[in-house]
């Protein structure tokens, strides 16, 4: 018996077809993964299921009864509770008022939260709570409605490992109670270990459904990419280790309690990986290097010359480009790809008066080509998929030119195909003699693209690992601050 049955659902937004004909069957007591590259239609399908939007064709039934929700509230009342990537909590009001707004039972909510090992003051203004905790709160709120079907959209993407483990435990428990979970994730290893079955969407059609077991990772990737099959990550080109010239030298950088005595160097022609758990001070480090924030102490040298950044433009003048973790802060959402790519070059092209569009066009089209940006929705970047938006933020620095690119978790929530393209691009930058400083929350991606890695824990450099020793297990231990690791050169 199917718990939930989605039958040939279609949905178009204007001329853009988001779903052609999607099918999904979830049986009671299973964790079902919904997979697909960016733009495959996962989000649209979940929006239809949760009453955020309506379907054009097809049908959905829950426990053999046809359903069609006209609002998220209705979906919740009928046992379908989603937890979205961006927690659906109102930032300016207290947590208690948020619960009241969604008619959530306070006692149930608190007990779910306690089961997660979290205690939160309900009178706290919601917007002041950190994102990982906010996601757990959103999850606890969803659980308080005793959902038949729990939908978790990329919930583990920004969670520290301990919280992610709790989420997994909750999913298991939910499953044990004979209810089901729809789990959306880009972390294939996670899918393989947690989920019972998986459905893969591609171009708005379900292309494959199968039981997950050992080795299904490859099958997932193949069906996600279809004929455009390619390895997960581009194999590393000849490493640019040859160069021993140092581009950036950071010494004793300190920022309050969050960063203390951070020293490291970035060589020319290398991709330096930075491994850390969420919130170990890496965000501050990136902001300082990008000129967004002034450090309390320490020095930065570029090409051996001491520099003091007072404004991001000072960093840009030193050919340091910054790709921030939140794509939304970097992009001009209502403007075209073209303008978004050119925005940092305006200085170069002409600072006052009319922008010379011929020279701009050349730079921009070069960037679009080299990054393989999908330009179908070229008029407004907010219509692009996450992966393509990320390419635009990187492409911006390709058009400007840079010596060092600071990439803060550039592949979060991005499909494997685009990931591979982005990493191949980084290797290309390094081979051209540029440098990349890469922070990624996905540890196993570090050995695939980096030349060496530094580890930050509680605002301090914990050590440096040569690439041969950067296997996931070693990194995992190191980012947790476990001392005495073999091969960890204490800096």
């Amino acid at each position: 018996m199917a718990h939930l049955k989605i039958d040939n659902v279609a949905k178009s937004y204007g001329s853009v077809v988001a779903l052609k004909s999607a099918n999904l069957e979830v049986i009671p007591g299973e964790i079902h993964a919904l997979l697909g590259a960016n733009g495959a239609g996962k989000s649209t399908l979940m929006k239809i299921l949760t009453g955020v939007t309506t379907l054009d064709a097809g049908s959905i039934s829950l426990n053999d009864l046809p359903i069609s929700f006209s609002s998220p509230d209705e979906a919740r009342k009928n046992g379908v509770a989603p937890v979205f990537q961006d927690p659906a909590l109102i930032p300016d009001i207290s947590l208690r008022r948020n619960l009241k707004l969604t008619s959530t039972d306070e006692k149930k909510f608190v007990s779910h939260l306690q089961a997660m090992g979290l205690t939160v003051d309900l009178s706290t203004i919601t917007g002041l709570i950190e994102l990982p905790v906010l996601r757990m709160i959103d999850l606890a709120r969803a659980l308080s409605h005793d959902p038949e079907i729990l939908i978790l959209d990329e919930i583990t993407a920004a969670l520290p490992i301990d919280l992610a483990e709790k989420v997994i435990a909750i999913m298991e428990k939910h499953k044990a109670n004979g209810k089901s979970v729809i789990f959306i994730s880009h972390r294939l290893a996670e899918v393989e270990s947690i989920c019972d079955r998986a459905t893969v969407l591609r171009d708005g059609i379900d292309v494959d459904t199968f039981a997950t077991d050992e080795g299904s990772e490859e099958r997932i990737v193949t069906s996600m990419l279809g004929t455009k099959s390619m390895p997960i990550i581009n194999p590393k080109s000849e490493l640019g280790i040859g160069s021993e010239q140092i581009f950036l030298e950071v010494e004793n950088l300190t920022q309050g309690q969050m960063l203390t005595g951070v020293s490291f160097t970035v060589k020319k022609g290398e991709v330096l990986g930075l491994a850390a758990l969420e919130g170990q001070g890496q965000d501050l480090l990136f902001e300082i290097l990008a000129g967004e924030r002034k450090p309390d102490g320490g020095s930065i040298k570029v090409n051996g010359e001491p520099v003091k950044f007072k404004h991001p433009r000072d960093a840009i003048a030193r050919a340091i480009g910054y790709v921030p973790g939140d794509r939304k802060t970097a992009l001009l959402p209502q403007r075209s790809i073209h303008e978004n790519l050119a925005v940092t070059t305006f200085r170069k092209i002409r600072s006052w008066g009319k922008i010379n569009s011929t020279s701009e066009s050349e730079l921009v089209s070069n960037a679009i080509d080299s990054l393989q940006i999908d330009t179908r929705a070229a008029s407004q970047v907010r219509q692009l998929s996450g992966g393509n938006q990320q390419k635009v933020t990187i492409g911006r620095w390709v058009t400007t030119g840079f010596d060092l690119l600071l990439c803060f978790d550039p592949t979060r929530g991005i499909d494997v195909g685009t990931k591979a393209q982005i990493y191949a691009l980084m290797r290309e930058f390094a081979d051209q003699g540029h440098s990349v400083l890469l922070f990624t929350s996905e540890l196993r991606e570090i050995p695939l693209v980096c030349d060496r890695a530094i580890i930050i824990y509680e605002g301090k450099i914990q050590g440096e690992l040569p690439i041969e020793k950067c296997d996931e297990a070693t990194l995992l231990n190191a980012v947790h601050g476990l001392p005495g690791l073999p091969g960890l050169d204490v800096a």
Partner: protein
Amino acid sequence: MKNLRLRERSWTIGITILFLILGFWRSQQLPKFGGYEIKTIILGVVPIALLAMGQSLIVIGGGINLAIGAEALLINCLTAKFMNGTSFIHSLLIAILGLLASVAVGVLTGWIIGASGIADIVVTLATSFIIVGIAMVIFPIPGGGTNAHFAQLITGGGNSFLLPLLAIALPYLLIWAPLYRSRTGIAIFAIGSNKDAAFLSGVDVKTTRIKLYAIGGLFAGFSGIALTCVTKSGSAIITISNAATLNSVAASVLGGIALSGGVGGLFGPVLASVVIYFIPTIMLGYGIDPAYSQIIQGTLTISVVLVGGWLRLRAKRSK
């Protein structure tokens, strides 16, 4: 973790101090300061305070109503026209009809904004012209009046300032206080704070906006009736409604309402509207040109917002 709330509280404390200083100043200025003088001050404040409450509510809900002064003006003209020379009961009925009319205008405004998708500021700018136009058609020559006993419901008798004070306190206690606790109230904060999250939390954004403008209209209606009772007349003059609208926005901002929506309460704006009343009155007491009081009011508004912004920044840093 509670810095935001602390900021709100410190803002209210700030505006209260400003209110006390100016109040003391004004009391020193007058040869005699007693019940009658307090009553005069409150009566001068009632229309603007009620309007400030309506505007603040709308701003909390993520909107802004540039027609709120016009709405009050329309109700002022309607009531002054039809209450003139009538009995108490008749005037009371007219007042109720006036309130219904202003709520209806609010409903219509909220509906237009939701249905058209045009920004609040544009829609209400347009409706402000329409509403003032209607008022001018209905009531071309200033005048009219009201039943004397009915007017005393707001103006009170003798030197007691209890009734004028209740004219502000009752709407606050009977509309705002229960609204703040209700689901509709939370929904108003929600759509002002983050529309998408509000929608995902099950809020019907369009209906909530209509309710928001309807309640805002109710406050504007009260304000219009208060104006009729205080001035015993009505006048359809566009400069009056424009000044009233701008003062209501100024009172909201001074009172700690974030123009970005989702933040604030109605207590601050009420005190702020008294502050706004005091500045020209005190200046006038010194025989200073009213033009200067405009400059001072503007400077004060910017200074307060600057200090508020600085406090917020500090709260964020220390987080």
